[in-house]
């Protein structure tokens, strides 16, 4: 008898007061965070400490240290390696621009559906098969040493140029496939809408499909951009004086390998921020898709 009455009383009281306040925002709880942080820090210290101890306790460590990590040699080699690295950056940006443009041509040709485009589609398929199947290093060697020897009239004869061409041809095959995946990922309804408005196949690609496809593939392209930045170093095998080549030249004259570490450091300095940027773009792209799906 009393129980339902009190329950009812509680209900009316709640109704009168309105909804309960939102729960207090949880601040950062030092006590709760302390233990996991401590465990994390300790395990990092133990693992890295052990690794450092294993490396430095090796018999040959002092010699390795002098040969690879000599600060003096690093300072001495730095200007030349940096100069070489500037070549890397220039080649990287030029080659990148050419790759993005050439791959777009390949991808567009490959995705044209008109019957008369069939031979061109086939050519692109063969192109992609060939240039994806041959190692970039091999292409750089073939182009960098082979074509200048032909002495073609009207064309540059430098290894740098033809090595760059080899990189463009090879990377464009990959990038074309990335573009194509982006084109295929655009919903079929977009093509139907464009076609129903009377847009030609080319107009459909240009105005409706490609802008969406390119936006879809930015994260995947960023990874290629990072990979390309490192692979420019392959041109050192045909004598292009990039960071790696300069480091090797220093090594050859001093028998000290610290210059290679300098080159490695420069590459990391350039690639790590780009990898973070790629991660950021991927995350942003994911959020955008989730929002669109919602």
């Amino acid at each position: 008898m009393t129980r339902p009455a009190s329950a009812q009383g509680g209900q009316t009281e709640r109704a009168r007061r309105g909804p309960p306040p939102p729960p207090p925002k949880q601040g950062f709880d030092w006590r709760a965070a302390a233990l996991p942080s401590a465990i994390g820090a300790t395990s990092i210290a133990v693992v890295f400490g052990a690794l450092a101890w294993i490396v430095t306790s090796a018999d040959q460590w002092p010699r390795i240290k002098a040969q690879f990590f000599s600060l003096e040699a690093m300072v001495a080699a730095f200007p030349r390696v940096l100069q070489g690295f500037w070549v890397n950056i220039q080649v990287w940006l030029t080659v990148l621009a050419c790759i993005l443009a050439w791959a777009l041509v390949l991808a567009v040709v490959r995705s044209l559906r008109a019957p008369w485009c069939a031979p061109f589609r086939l050519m692109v398929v063969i192109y992609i098969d060939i240039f994806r199947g041959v190692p970039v290093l091999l292409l750089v060697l073939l182009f960098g040493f082979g074509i200048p020897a032909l002495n073609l009239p009207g064309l540059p004869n430098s290894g740098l140029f033809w090595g760059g061409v080899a990189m463009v041809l090879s990377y464009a095959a990959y990038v074309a496939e990335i573009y194509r995946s982006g084109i295929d990922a655009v919903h079929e309804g977009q093509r139907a809408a464009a076609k129903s408005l009377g847009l030609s196949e080319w107009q459909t690609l240009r105005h409706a499909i490609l802008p969406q496809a390119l936006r879809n593939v930015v994260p995947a392209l960023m990874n290629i951009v990072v990979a390309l930045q490192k692979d420019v170093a392959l041109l050192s095998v045909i004598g292009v004086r990039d960071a790696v080549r300069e480091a090797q030249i220093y090594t050859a004259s001093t028998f000290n390998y610290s210059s290679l570490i300098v080159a490695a450091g420069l590459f990391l300095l350039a690639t790590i921020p780009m990898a973070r940027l790629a991660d950021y773009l991927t995350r942003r792209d994911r959020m955008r898709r989730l929002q669109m799906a919602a």
Partner: protein
Amino acid sequence: MTPRIEIDTVTKYFGTKLVLDRVSLSVARHEVLCLIGASGSGKSTLLRCVNRLIAQDYGTIRLDGVPIDDPVFGKTGLQQRAGIVFQAYNLFPHMTVLDNITLAPRRVHGLPRPEAEARGHEMLARFGMADFARAYPEQLSGGQQQRVAIARALMTRPDVLLLDEITAALDPELVGEVLAIIRGLKDEGMTMMIVTHEMGFAREVADRVAFLSEGAILEQDTPERLFGSPQEPRTQAFLRRIIASGRL
């Protein structure tokens, strides 16, 4: 008088699956024809054949007596005269509302941008979307997107409007605003072929209703007679299911 649309024994296969089976239909000027039937009965396919998004395998479709694959239409003439609106709106997500609706007039029909945009603003104002010209589709509700899609289809001043389940993807409370537009278009005398699952709407707006089953037209009549006293057993069964699910 020649019918606006004349569909003459049209047959279509997807692979070996028969999706349209000798369909014959005609739609007079200013007439509104509703196509009803279960999913997969070929309604949307038929609609898409009318503006050549899909090519039929056999049979002829004529617009004002001219076969739609006749060279008279050129590359874009048919699309100019028969607009289509899709279930999923299919707006271009990377373009503003104004760019979406002026794309075809500018790029296909060569209208200068100022004129196309003037016409676009006019069209948006008519559908209560004047404030959204610079918005992107993802910023709009489903009902607003569908209104833009209708505006886009009307930008080239077509003679025929094809509506493919245009309210099927909408939240129930947004259906009304889209249907109100269609009512308005009917009052203006637009010839329409409407594929719909909104039987109440079909009954209200249609001059004639055609029931499709397994790619064939089983029955066509005025909405009163088709909904009131269907002749074919399959039509009856379909309508019973619709009534049972509370949609009529």
